[in-house]
């Protein structure tokens, strides 16, 4: 009907090799903690700085997510860490897509000598807010949108599990994907969480038989197809790659990054390519910047609010042909022990949003850094290249990380 594409790339300069992640930190991830999100972010940042062997007074750049409530701003940084030096500030950080693109913004700031040590953090207390019924939570942004509020919410097409259940049904129709195949993603994520000390679902076992026996929730989803809601925060510290060697831990180098969008934004019902994600645009671009291909990726972490979103991104990032993701994820393919050499794809080795925590993807980046340092709980043997797939629905990002020398 039209030659107009359904999405595209955000233009990025080449920043390959310029910036490194040198420190990572997290709070505990829990349900209904009652904790202040700003205090949680401060704890995560302090842990990340400690991990890097850096002091708070060495930080001269602060990134957070603008437009989202209760994020840790430069004012909070001054208040918690007592610094009075000039700070470069960016509201283009945070989690989701931005956990992948923050290193790009940081690289440009470092290149232009606006900052030299930059922290990016994200914090969320939606488990507490949901429990307290204070109106906050993942659905709030959608409920307040004029179009969704008038053309979707009154018909019950709300919140996110409903969008993605309809998308999953469409994927099943177009490609023959089955519920058991979606279940395979939930199972592998849970197995990884079971052996990860920070995972909310560490003690909760889940087999494919358990999954299939679970009652329908939002057909075709079971509860296990949907992410956790938890409280917690995570942060990472970035600096120039040539300075990174002086930090406490082996540096992790940002080798490629790209960002893309769907022209229908987060109006999921109107996505013309409804069974695809904008990863189809940004993953190849990030691989190009890094000089790699999908076959070179040792460990993958993908924003996984629902099993189907993980599945679509695995396809769109080139790990299998479009539409064959269901067959691809069966069995132990995604298990960290199998590895690429034996046809596997170590995936969300911390358990992801489905079973580790719901800090909206920033813990995925933390996990990848630990993988490349060789200090992960579910360590992938000889991991050299790690990739994060970020997602908001309307946008995606791909971040290619490499083990530093």
């Amino acid at each position, binding site marked *: 009907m039209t030659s107009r594409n359904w999405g595209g790339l955000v233009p990025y300069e080449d920043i390959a090799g310029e910036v490194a992640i040198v420190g990572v930190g997290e709070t505990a991830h829990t349900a209904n903690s009652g904790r202040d999100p700003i205090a949680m972010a401060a704890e995560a940042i302090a842990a990340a700085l400690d991990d890097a062997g850096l002091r708070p007074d060495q930080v001269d750049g602060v990134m957070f997510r603008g437009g989202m409530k209760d994020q840790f701003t430069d004012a909070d940084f001054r208040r918690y860490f007592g610094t009075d030096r000039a700070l470069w500030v960016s509201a283009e950080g945070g989690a989701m897509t931005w956990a992948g693109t923050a290193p790009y913004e940081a690289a440009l700031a470092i290149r232009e000598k606006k900052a030299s040590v930059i922290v990016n953090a994200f914090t969320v207390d939606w488990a507490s807010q949901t429990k307290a019924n204070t109106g906050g939570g993942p659905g709030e942004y959608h409920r307040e949108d004029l179009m969704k509020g008038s053309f979707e919410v009154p018909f019950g097409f709300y919140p996110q599990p409903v969008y993605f*259940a309809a998308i999953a049904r469409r994927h099943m129709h177009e490609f023959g994907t089955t519920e058991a195949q979606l279940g395979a993603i939930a199972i592998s994520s849970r197995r990884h969480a079971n052996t990860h000390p920070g995972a909310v679902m560490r003690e909760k076992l889940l087999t494919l038989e358990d999954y299939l026996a679970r009652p329908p929730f939002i057909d075709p989803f079971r509860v296990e197809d949907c992410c956790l809601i938890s409280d917690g925060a995570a942060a990472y510290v970035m600096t120039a790659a040539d300075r990174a060697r002086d930090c406490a831990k082996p540096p992790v180098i940002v080798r490629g990054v790209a960002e893309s969008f769907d022209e229908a934004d987060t109006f999921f019902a109107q996505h013309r390519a409804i069974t695809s994600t904008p990863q189809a645009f940004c993953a190849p671009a990030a691989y190009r910047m890094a000089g790699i291909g999908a076959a070179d990726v040792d460990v993958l972490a993908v924003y996984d609010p629902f099993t189907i979103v993980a599945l679509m991104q695995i396809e769109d990032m080139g790990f299998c042909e479009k539409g064959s993701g269901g067959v691809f994820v069966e069995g132990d393919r995604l298990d960290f022990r199998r590895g690429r050499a034996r046809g596997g794809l170590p995936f969300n080795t911390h358990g992801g949003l489905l079973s580790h925590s719901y800090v909206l993807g920033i813990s995925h980046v933390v996990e990848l850094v630990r993988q490349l340092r060789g200090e992960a709980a579910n360590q992938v043997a000889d991991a050299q290249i790690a990739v994060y797939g970020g997602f908001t629905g309307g946008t995606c990002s791909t971040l290619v990380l490499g083990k530093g020398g």
Partner: protein
Amino acid sequence: MMDFPLPNFAHESLKPFWDAAASRKLVFPRCTACGAFCWYPRPNCPECGGADFTWTEIGGVARLFSWAVVRRALHAPLKPIVPYVPVILEFDGAPGVRLVTRWIGGDIGGLTIGQEVRITFDDLGCPGIHTDILAPLCS
């Protein structure tokens, strides 16, 4: 049901849709310059950039594009009508339009993608919640 989520009827970019629904008609904005349907309403046509739209009645066959069955309401105001079935429809002859609505035709298990459905104007809260708003549902 005071807290049932009601559309914004007053906003100028949405009013024609709900005004038409009140008289049991289904209309969508169509670009005056290139004829493309543009949904949801937006200031400029994504095909040609045109800024002038004519709200046009759709008469073609409606087909089921996808759906979800909500067995446990995540949105409290809709709890009284679980299970409910939000659907996405497409229309023969109106490419570019996907209508989000709700299936009220029973036999949830028999739904298939691509099947023809009938637009039924009924209370937005049907079945069981009275909003006194006429809305295009489907059966």
